[in-house]
């Protein structure tokens, strides 16, 4: 575990650093992918959406974290704006980013689907890099396990949830790359990405030792994950009816 990288008088948080690196790689990559898929026009649109996405993800991630850690955040509302990278929740960031771009596009009247497909091809790599940050900082740690590939963290052998998350992101990346070669309806790649995200949350969240909980001890990210899967499938079902050729 290397939560801090000493750099002269500064102690940089490795988790935050890798998250930043991931975002930078994502911005670079998304513009390139957009250029390949839709030329300069799509590239411009994608880069104009970057800021709303990041802002929405930041606000959503922190709000989500704070609302589900209300015992701490309710007493110290200042924490909602504190500069702490670790206190972000991925489910909230995903929802916040999507909501903010959706609102932005309603206001600017842009066609969201092609940009969303670019995001689907980019985000898994960003997440894989961010997972490495989680591993370095010991965030998103797993439950204790006796499995041979457990890693020592906080005095126990635990599930390497961060590595699971990275593998899930890389597998998602591979699947989406394969799907991208087919001519699918605009938005289909993003729907597939959401489905894969939902599956990842549903399956990996129970192995985490720091999952955010809601009533009855249910893990909120699993509920969101199932919702994402069903939402993506509902989208697919509707599209298939309208355009039977698309999913062939």
């Amino acid at each position: 575990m290397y939560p801090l990288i000493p750099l002269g008088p500064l102690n940089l948080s490795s988790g935050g650093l890798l998250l930043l690196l991931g975002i930078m790689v994502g911005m670079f990559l998304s513009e390139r992918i957009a250029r390949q898929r839709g030329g300069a026009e799509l590239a411009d649109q994608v880069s104009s959406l970057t800021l709303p996405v990041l802002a929405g993800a930041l606000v959503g991630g922190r709000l989500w974290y704070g609302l589900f850690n209300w015992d701490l955040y309710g007493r110290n509302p200042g924490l909602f704006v504190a500069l702490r990278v670790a206190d972000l929740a991925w489910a909230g960031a995903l929802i916040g980013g999507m909501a903010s771009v959706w609102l932005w596009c309603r206001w600017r009247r842009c066609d969201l689907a092609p940009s969303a497909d670019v995001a689907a091809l980019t985000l898994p790599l960003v997440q894989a890099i961010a997972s490495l940050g989680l591993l370095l900082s010991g965030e998103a740690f797993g439950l204790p396990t006796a499995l041979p590939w457990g890693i020592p963290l906080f005095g126990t052998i635990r599930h390497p949830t961060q590595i699971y998350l990275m593998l899930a992101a890389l597998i998602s990346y591979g699947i989406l790359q394969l799907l991208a070669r087919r001519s699918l309806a605009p938005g289909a790649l993003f729907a597939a990405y959401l489905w894969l995200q939902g599956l990842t949350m549903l399956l990996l969240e129970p192995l985490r030792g720091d999952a955010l909980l809601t009533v009855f001890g249910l893990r909120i990210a699993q509920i969101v994950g199932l919702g994402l899967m069903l939402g993506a499938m509902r989208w697919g079902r509707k599209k298939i009816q309208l355009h039977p050729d698309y999913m062939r």
Partner: protein
Amino acid sequence: MVMLRRSQWDILMLATLVVGIGLIVLSRVRPDQPVSLAEPGAASVATVPAPREGHPAPDFTLLDLTGQPVQLADLRGQVILINIWATWCPPCRAEMPMIQASYEEYRDQGFTVLAVNSREEAATVAGYMDASGLTFPALLDRDGTVSNVYQARVMPSSFFVDRAGVIRAVYRGPLARSVIAGTVEQLLAEAP
């Protein structure tokens, strides 16, 4: 990709829903009945030491800045704030004056602070305590054993231990002054 008819698609969605809900319910975290601060005097159910509310605080022995060993179990009967910190951690430094204030206010009533410093040199810690006018005991967790046992992945981490040695409140992240005072007063009011 295989073409799915509408009915097959519906079945697939239904199956996802059912399997998903099953998985969510099966893997839920079962509450292990932590002692609520709202009910003073409630019996502790958990007997296994763990760094969680309602569990006995895991025991440790560490050296203080004068080289004397301090054991948690020896302080049984007092209300203890175990604060895991480091001098390089800004939010830890920010809450130190508030901890000092509550230490001065409540120490005569049986409250003490164990400021467990994580992995730093005695000289660094002593210099910081002196410069900041902090008088409560600072303990040196040189190899991070206690931080590990207390799963202090966030610094500062604070654990309020009642007179019976049971952890009654856990805070990850900086404390507000009112939180310290409120918790300490409530725990001091309980019968020893």
